[in-house]
């Protein structure tokens, strides 16, 4: 062992007796570069090669704008639904004891495990006008399958576990004594939830929202079956990328993908800022 230098200068890594740093880091970096970084930078390079004029023309094309609006709008709505119901589901799973709780808890991960195409055809069959749920909604004048509402339904399915699984562990950590203290000080149940519990859960809820939203924006498999895919009405951005690719319009496909990546990146940044703010405010 070398003696610890009192004031060593810049050092790439701390000394350690464990071997294999060079091998494992080298292999990981090489694999990461080959599989992820080179292909992704190819996308950036191709869209940069387009030039601003062409890029802008594709970006403000009415069909592109509509597809982006539909993707981000439906993903936002679905994430809001998931925040409300996901938080209720997490609360029920954490706080209440009932038979079948373990099964209900395990079921929450179904959207992680079920292939998106399977979810897509199952939801479409359920919500089609002659489906189990569709025929109940038909008399009410609500059409779900083959409309933007169908996209929201599919994205609610896809996003649910993201909210539940981020909120649930934080709920489990909540110290009941804090609630008891608030109660003994005369707070009502509602006040305790709003003033004591919610602030602690807010960062997790925001994280869950952003994960569900990000996943929803990019989702393809489950949506294309139920959406109807009418240009300008129910055509999502990932589908438009596929359509442009099938037309051999690589430029348009690349530009739309670059816009989606940039928007998602901005969104993640905003969410991070909101999170830092909420931690400061409530943490």
């Amino acid at each position, binding site marked *: 062992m070398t003696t610890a230098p009192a004031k060593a200068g810049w050092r790439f890594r701390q000394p350690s007796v464990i071997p294999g740093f060079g091998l494992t880091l080298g292999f990981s970096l090489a694999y*990461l570069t080959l599989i992820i970084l080179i292909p992704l930078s190819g996308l950036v390079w191709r869209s940069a090669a387009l030039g601003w004029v062409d890029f802008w023309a594709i970006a403000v094309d009415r069909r592109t704008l509509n597809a982006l609006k539909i993707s981000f709008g439906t993903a936002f709505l679905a994430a809001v639904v998931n925040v409300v119901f996901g938080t209720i589901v997490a609360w*029920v799973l954490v706080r209440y004891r009932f038979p079948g709780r373990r099964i209900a808890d395990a079921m929450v991960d179904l959207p992680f495990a079920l292939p998106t195409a399977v979810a897509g055809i199952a939801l479409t069959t*359920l919500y089609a006008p002659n489906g189990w749920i569709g025929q109940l909604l038909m008399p009410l004048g609500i059409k779900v399958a083959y409309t933007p509402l169908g996209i929201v339904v599919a994205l609610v399915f896809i996003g649910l576990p993201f909210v539940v699984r981020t909120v649930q562990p934080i709920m489990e950590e909540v110290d009941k004594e804090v609630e008891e203290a608030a109660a003994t000080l005369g707070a009502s149940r509602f006040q305790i939830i709003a003033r004591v519990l919610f602030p602690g859960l807010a960062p997790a809820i925001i994280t869950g929202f952003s994960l569900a939203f990000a996943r929803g924006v990019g989702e393809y498999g489950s949506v294309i079956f139920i959406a109807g895919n009418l240009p300008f009405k129910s055509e999502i951005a990932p589908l438009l990328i596929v359509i442009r690719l099938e037309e051999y319009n690589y430029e348009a496909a690349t530009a739309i993908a670059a816009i989606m990546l940039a928007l998602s990146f901005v969104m993640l940044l905003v969410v991070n800022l909101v999170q830092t703010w909420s931690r400061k405010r409530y943490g």
Partner: protein
Amino acid sequence: MADPEIKSYEPHHESQSAAVTESRPVKAVLMAFAFAFLAVFLLLPLIVVFHEALAKGAGAYTEALSSPDTRSAIRLTLLVAAISVPLNVVFGISAAWAIAKFEFKGKAFLTTLIDLPFSVSPVISGLVYVLLFGAQGLLGAWLKAHGIVILFAVPGIVLATIFVTFPFVARELIPLMQEQGNGDEEAALSLGASGWQAFWYVTLPNVKWGLLYGVLLCNARAMGEFGAVSVVSGHIRGLTNTMPLHVEILYNEYNAVGAFAVASLLAGLALVTLVLKTLLEMRYGAELAAARGH
């Protein structure tokens, strides 16, 4: 303000005081909401898959599954998972070793990069390989000159699958190995074990359940991936159709029994994954706690 009367101030309370839990009706309403939501959004889609698959009887079901195209889709899906999952396991172990066992500059950045594929749309994950290897792609001309086929063939499907399943194993192992620290390995090394021996006999047994957990999730995604694979596959029946892609083709041909029969196999895989995952969490919950979250 709420009424000042303090109802429950016992040092130990067998029943929860009213203010620390919801009233009975509120509880009932919340549970009803949660159950209705889970039933409509999770249970019904699962039931409908098996219902539709068996709608025309068991005979039609087995017939649908024994068609040559379905058989080849199943084989391709198994092949793709058999290549991509082990590769991501090797990467996951290697990345976790570097990140969890050592302190170095840029570690947080590297961890973020590993998670990158989760925030990229599956369609874009496929697209990047089309831009790289396609006829108009950066390497397209070179590949053609050398007679190498990647796109619209098995290598492309494998690459796209590796891309989308990239983080699964690593992100289970990294927090788990960080939690366990270096003490065991240092003890083994000081007793004269080689680095490999420390890994095989100390680290690997320590993380085996977390590893299995990661493999399970990685495999479920690898076999079920649709968007990325759809972009690079070319949809050649009997050749480059994986099971999820075959589901789409059958469904679009209005072959509901066929589509749902293949879908039922994938749903079965999902159920097996969930059961194994739950069992792992129940038996090794404490061990996995650090790695939980996804």
